[in-house]
């Protein structure tokens, strides 16, 4: 099995795994990687998991998810958020971030995404 396929399977398995510590693994290993593709796949997996803690990783952290320094990774995360069928949890996190986060840029990004979701 090719390594790219292995990597995708691992990230997919962590996205769907019942054990809550899977989120920590994705954040610890995936979102901190220097490889753009790894960060992109990890952010997508965290969004698909659709839990408060997994969504918080990609919305509230500088340099991760929608705040990633790579434009392609950030745009990919935003698209994934906008295409979600169940947006209940993500809207809660966005609102909480918009109101309470200490970092202005992160608050601004959350507000923008929330606005886009209203139109999608």
């Amino acid at each position, binding site marked *: *099995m090719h*390594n790219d*396929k*292995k*990597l995708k*399977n*691992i*990230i*997919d*398995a*962590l996205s*769907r*795994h*019942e*054990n809550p*510590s*899977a989120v920590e*693994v994705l954040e*610890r*290993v*995936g979102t901190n*990687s*220097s*490889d753009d*593709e*790894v960060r992109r796949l990890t952010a997508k997996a965290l969004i698909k998991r659709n839990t408060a803690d997994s969504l918080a990783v990609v919305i509230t952290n500088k340099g991760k998810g929608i705040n990633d320094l790579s434009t392609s990774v950030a745009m990919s995360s935003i698209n994934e958020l906008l295409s979600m069928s169940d947006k209940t949890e993500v809207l809660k996190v966005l609102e909480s971030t918009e109101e309470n986060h200490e970092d202005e840029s992160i608050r601004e990004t959350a507000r923008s995404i929330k606005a886009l979701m209203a139109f999608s």
Partner: protein
Amino acid sequence: MEIKSISKNLFGIKRQNLESNQTNPFGVNYKGNMINADVFDVSFTGGKEKLIEKAAKKGKMWASAMVSSINEGISSRLDSIARFGSRMKENTINLWNSVHNFDFASRVRDLGNSVKSTITAINEYSTNNLLKCDPVDFIESRFVGLVRMREAAANA
């Protein structure tokens, strides 16, 4: 002396009847004594062979040589066949022993284990199998390894 008076039987040799000539082929007796066939045997001639005996002897020698060489040829061929037979027998026995001692069971078991290992290696990274890993330490270790490989390749 007239020629006519000269006896044809100058030496007094009288001829015998033909019927009694089994041992006296020439039907000759000398001074009343029957001359037997053994007179014509070589041993009585003091080693001096007659031409016919010489020819017969040469023929016999030639025939003897022929038979001897034929026998020799036949013997060597028979030896060759015997050696071939022995070799074939030895090879058959060795083959039988090899087959008899071949441990089919362990070979099949080794092959089975090898196939199983390969299948296990392929299935190790299937999503369904990874989902069954709990805790997720195994998944994390594989995740770390693959990420580092990608990063190393990118930096190379």
